Structure formats: C-alpha cells, structure tokens
C-alpha cells in the first residue's frame, strides 16, 4: 500500500505538469540550448534519418555513444529517459516473443538488437534536439526556415496553454471524485478501483473540451486585437522578430565536430 501511494504521488497530474514544463522550458542554460535552432535542425536531419541506412553495427554503436553524450549534455529529464527505455524494451521484447512464437530461435536476437540500437539513436537525437529548444526557440526556428507564422505561433501558444489545460483537467477530475462514488471493494488485484479511475480519467476530457472551446473565443478575439493577423501578413514583422537569430562560431564548431566524429567512425571502424 505504501508503495502504491508513493507511486501515485509520482504519477499525479501535478507532477506530470511539472515534468512537462521543465522538459519544455527548464534547460535553457546547456551548451546545446545556446545553439541556433537551424544548427539543431541540420544536426537532427542527419541523425534522425541517416541511421536507417547504416548496417555496420560498430558505426551504430559509435553513434549511440555520441547520442548518449549529447543527451547527457542536454540534461534531459529522467522521466523522459525512463519512458523511452520502457518503449524500446517493450518494442524489442514484443518482437522477440512474436518471432519465437512463430518458430524463430534466438538468432533473431541480433537483428532485433540492431533495430533497437537504430531506434535508440534516432530517439535520443530527437530528445536531445527538442529538449534543447524551448517552444519559443523552436517556433522562431521554424519561422526562419519559412514555415508559416500561424504554425509556429501555434506551437508556442500550445505550450502556453498546456499548464492551464492540465490544471483544468485536474479540477474536473477532482470534481468527479468529489461527487462520484468509488467502488466499495477494490476487487481482485484492485481491478474495480482501477476501472473506476480509468473511467473518470476518460470522462474528464469531455468537460475540458467544452470549456476550452469557450476560452478559445476570448483568445481569438484578443489575438485579433493584438495584431497577430497583421503580423503574419507583413514580412517586416518577421524580420523584426528574428533579428536576434544568428549562426555563431560555436554553431559551426558543433556541426563540424559532429561531422568529423561520424566520418571518423566510418574510417576507423
């Protein structure tokens, strides 16, 4: 019982909110976070796609090690890493079981490991990049590479609303608890209680949708008065916004360093 309580403390809506916000905004002072978003885009373009076409295990392992280092440098939240590991192990494990079930043997293990390493490299690269850019930086970066203003604004606004929405969800969820009736008995393996919570967790989304629709009305009006439409249609606004964005020496150094490392991997291994 004590363990379940501790676990549920970690899993509270409050906690999820804190982790999400910290992942989004909390890593502003790392080396990677100070790079220009375009550098990170380029870097990600390579490490997010290229591993699919490499079959040399040692090169993959080398890249994996590099990704572990960058993930460490980016100070990614442990929760995210935990979820990632869970996902990768689940994926690999399930494929292994399926292959064994359909008459395969342990020789399937090696190709599965290769796949898992590829997936890890790509996932870690994504985590590194997206944890190092807060939503505003990401949205400015997208704007710079000619994504429409509406799209880049939506990203930054989405994050602005995230804590509000989570809080509201939490309130609705609590209202269900304050008026509802929990099962008298927990049932075998807490099945009844779990069922009850899953049910209200889902039901809580409906009121949230309705109230969000209502909020959106004010927001859209306010955006209109704050000149967002004007801004999206006038290129000088975009110039003004992105005036501070410059590729600096460390951007080039990072890109050159990464390329040298990858080239090195191919030559030496």
């Amino acid at each position, binding site marked *: 019982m004590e363990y379940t309580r501790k676990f549920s403390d970690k899993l509270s809506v409050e906690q999820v909110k804190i982790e999400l916000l*910290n992942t989004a905004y909390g890593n502003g002072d790392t080396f990677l976070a100070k790079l220009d978003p375009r550098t990170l885009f380029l870097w990600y373009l390579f490490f997010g796609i290229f591993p699919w076409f490499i079959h040399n295990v040692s090169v993959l392992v080398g890249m994996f090690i590099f990704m572990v280092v960058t993930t460490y440098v980016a100070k990614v939240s442990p929760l995210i890493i935990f979820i990632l590991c869970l996902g990768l192990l689940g994926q690999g494990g399930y494929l292994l079981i399926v292959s064994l079930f359909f008459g395969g043997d342990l020789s399937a293990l090696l190709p599965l490991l290769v796949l898992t390493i590829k997936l890890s490299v790509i996932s870690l690269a994504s985590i590194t990049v997206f944890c190092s850019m807060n939503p505003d930086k990401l949205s400015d970066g997208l704007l710079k590479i000619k994504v429409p203003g509406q799209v880049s604004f939506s990203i930054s606004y989405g994050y602005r609303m995230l804590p509000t929405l989570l809080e509201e969800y939490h309130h609705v969820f609590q209202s269900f*608890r304050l008026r509802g009736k929990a099962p008298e008995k927990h049932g075998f393996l807490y099945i009844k209680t779990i069922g009850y919570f899953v049910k209200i967790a889902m039901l809580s989304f409906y*009121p949230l949708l309705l109230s969000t629709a209502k909020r959106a009305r004010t927001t859209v009006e306010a955006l209109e008065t704050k000149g967002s439409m004007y801004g999206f249609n006038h290129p000088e606004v975009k110039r003004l916004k992105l005036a501070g964005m410059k590729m600096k020496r460390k951007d080039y150094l990072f890109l050159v360093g990464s390329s040298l490392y990858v080239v090195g991997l191919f030559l030496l291994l």
Partner: protein
Amino acid sequence: MTKHIDIKNVTFQYPGATEPVLNNVNLSIEKGDFVAILGGNGSGKSTLCKLLNGLIPHYYVGDFAGEVTVNNLNTLDHKVADLSRTVGYVYQDFENQIVSPRVLEDACFAPLHYGLADYRERGLRALQLVGLAEVKNAFVWQLSGGQKHLLALASVLSLNPEIIIIDEPVAQLDPQHAKVIYDILKELNEVHGKTIIVIEHHTEFVASYAKNVVLMEKGNVTFKLPVKEALNQVDILLAHQIYPPQITQAAKMIGVIDSLPITIEEGLPTFSELGPLEAHIKHSASKLNPIVSYEKVNFSYKTVSRDKKQVLHDINCTIYEGDYIALVGNNGAGKSSFMRLITGLVKPGSGDVLVDGTNTRKLSPEHLAEKVTYIHQNPEQMFIEDCVDKDVEFFMKARKVKNYRSKVEQLLEQFELTNLADHDSRLLSGGQQRRASLAIGVGMHPEIMLLDEPTANLDISTRKHITRLLDGLKDTLKAVIVATHDMQLVCEFANRIIVMHEGRIIHDGDRESVFQNYRLLEKAGLVPPQIFSFTQSLGWDQPAYTVEEFAIRYQGRDVANGVYA
C-alpha cells in the same frame, strides 16, 4: 472638449440571436474621462465595449446599424488592427487574453506584431507602469491571479492606446489588490491623460474613482451622469439591481432628502454626531460538538521549479457544530488549501485533519463527499455534465438515492433553474452558474459546506439571492465555512471569523474582535464594510455592521432623544 467616442443610433444583434443586444444606443464620451458602466448581468455592457475596438462589426458579423466614431475614426471604415492601437480592451476572463509563455514576451506581443521596432522598450515601459517589471522573465503560470490581470493590462498598454476598457477589474481580487489596480487606472487617467472605461458592480469603487457613470439596461443607455448625481439615483439604481455605496443607502434610508453622500468624507457632515442606540451583541451558542479538527497541520505543494512551497504552517483549529465561519485574508493566504484539506482531495504534509473523529488520511474524497461539500470558486470547474439537470443529479444517481428525480426537480425549483435544466451550465451567466453550483452542493445533503468566494463576480441582486439561500441552509447544515473577500457577507453571515495570513491563523474571533482591531485589519489586508468605517468616523463606540443596523440604531437614537416623540 472634443468627443472622443461617439456612438450614434447603434443597434446590434448577434447572428442567431432573436433580440438585439444593443437597441438604438446613443452615447458620447470625452477625452480624459473616467467612466464606469453599470448594469445588471446581460444588459449589453460588454457588447457596447466591443463596439469601440471594432470587434463589432468586423469580427462579429451580426445585424449592425448606426455609426460609431472613436478618436475620429469611423469603426466601419477602419479595421480592428487600426482601432486596437487606439482602444485597449482587458477582458473579464483576462487569463485567456495572455498568449505568450513569458511575461515580457506577452507585454511585447502586440507592438511586435504591429511591426513597431521599439517593441521591447514598449513592453518594458508597460510592465513598469503596472508594477510588473520585477517579474518580467517569469512564466505566466507562475503569476498570481492579480498579477495576471495586471499583465493583461500591460499587454494592452504597450500599444499606448488613448482609450482603455477594462471589464470587471476587481472581481476576483482582495481589497488591497483591488485598490492597487484602481490606483493604476487613476494614474493612467490623471497623469497620462487616458480615457478609462470600466465595467463595474462595486459602486464604492465607482464613487471613489470614476468621473461619470453610464447605466445600461436591456441594450439601452438609461442615463449618463456625473458620478455624484448618478449614485444619487438610488431608486433607479435599485430598480436595476445595482446597490449604491452603503453610505448612500444609509443616508437614503434615514430620510436624507437633498444630495446624498457617496463617500465617507462626504457623509460625515450629513449625519449628526449624537450617540447611537446601543447595539445588542449576540454571543454565539456554547461550543460542544467538534466536527472538524486540525492538529499541527502543515501543507505544501511542489512548484514548477521543483521547489516546495509551504502553504499552511502549523494549523491548530477546531470547528464545532453550529459554526458559520468566514475565512478571510489576502489572496494566497492559504484559505483554499485550508478548506480543501477537509475534502480529502489533498492530505496534510504533516499533522492530521479529523472529520467527525476520523482521520482524512484514511478516507477517500468520494467517501468524505457524503459529509462534506466543496463549492468551487469558479463554478465552471464543478460542471462535469453537459446540462444543469444532469449535473445536479450526478451525486444522487451515483449513490442510487431513492426518488432522486423528485429531489432534483425540487432543487431546480428552489434555485430557480427549472427553465435552464437542459442548458449547458458553462453557457449560463455568472449568477446562474453560481446558483447551479449551489444546487449541486445542496443536492449532496452535506453536514459541512465549504464555499470558496461564493459572491465573487455577481451583480448585487444575485448576490442577495445567494446570501438568502445561504441563510436558509443554516438549518440543515452542521457547519459552514465561507472563504471570501466580501466583508458585507462576512458581517451578515458569520458567527465566527478566522483570519489567515501567509499560511497561519492570526486571529479567530467574531466581527467585533476582528473589525475593531485596526492592526489586525492592516496586517491581513482587510477592509471593513463602508458603513462600519463610517460609523467609526462618526465616533460611535459600537460601530454598525450593516446598513439596516445603522438605520435602526440611528433612528432609534432620535426616538430615544425624543425627536419624534
């Protein structure tokens, strides 16, 4: 002086509505004015304000007739974007108006998107004007409610508009913070020459700050008068469900015929200084049966930066049967946390809360719900179904209460919601929402009822209605706790007052011990009802707490002194 705003014969009907919200409105406002718009819920106040920044007719394409000129711009010929630089609008639900994650960014948003190169300076200047410069790098979700309101105002000020409209600026604020925002508006008006328009229910603020008053009813402007004259129209105001300042009501009630005072200073010469009739101080019943007790309770929560914030420090308190408690103190004093601990939704960090002798640590909120009802500050957060009727029946249906349908019907009747039974609760007006949330609460047949700010955001008639309902509930409930900034409610309702300050209980007494303790009031940021301060200024030893009490004791004095004999 030139007309700054000129509304001529304007009629407007929202698309899909059956009646126009504005009906042949004529109104002009001069530059540098400070106007308060009064009117009951649904009288068209907000719609009127949306005419001025062009949202009507450009954004809401309903049936529009007439002409609106703002700062010599005809709103039909100019876009929202042009008009917004002249007219700044702060919404009632201002929180949804904040669109960026960081404070400074939000303040800069408008000038940046209008392509003004000095957008950062503008944002900073606006933040300085409202006193938020220190938190410019904070995230908006770290701000308190009052700070968010100031930020919404700053975001509007960054465009340096000539006209500022602010919809219910103090609805959710404690008296100290409310004064802060009005003082800022006053400075903007007097020092920077802005035209200020507020929509306001609190006539005491109107009396102290506004220059002119516009009264609206059913889409019409009933009158526009200088503030003193306007607030003197007591009968007309009351007919529109607006209560003039207490001092004005008191003067009217004791039969002052010529001009009625609207502030304490004006009132002093009106009333003679003869001593009043003595007050009968009622002592509350002996306290025998404890129903809730707090034992050395500490409570904290984690903030986004992963620190712990301690909200309650070492609370010891017992609540007895027959207690009608008002919980008062500034925003952030820990009032809501104090109440939520009784619901079992949150558990104390250390110490224990006992409800009917059982530790809340051992009880789930679902279990406690059978004894305790918590009415949320924002009624919308209590609506979990898609219509009023289903929301009210939810608790009883889940518990398979016998004949629950007839009980639901009865509740809907009692709270005047029968006609609204199939409406979505979220789309009701503020007062209706409040009634619905109370109906939900009463439907749970609680022993203890907890109410968080039950009278915030209400026009006075709805407020009276709610107070009456609360009084009626006293018989069926063992104890009531009301957290509120509304000192009139405190004086009328409570037999015990608990004052909280920075997570501690700093006083536990009744209205005599609270309001006559000047240092306590100052420390906790409480402002007594106007009639109380006034009778104190008159030198009464036992000040009056309500207008009715004042009138009885003031006139009783005349009888006692043989004036009418």
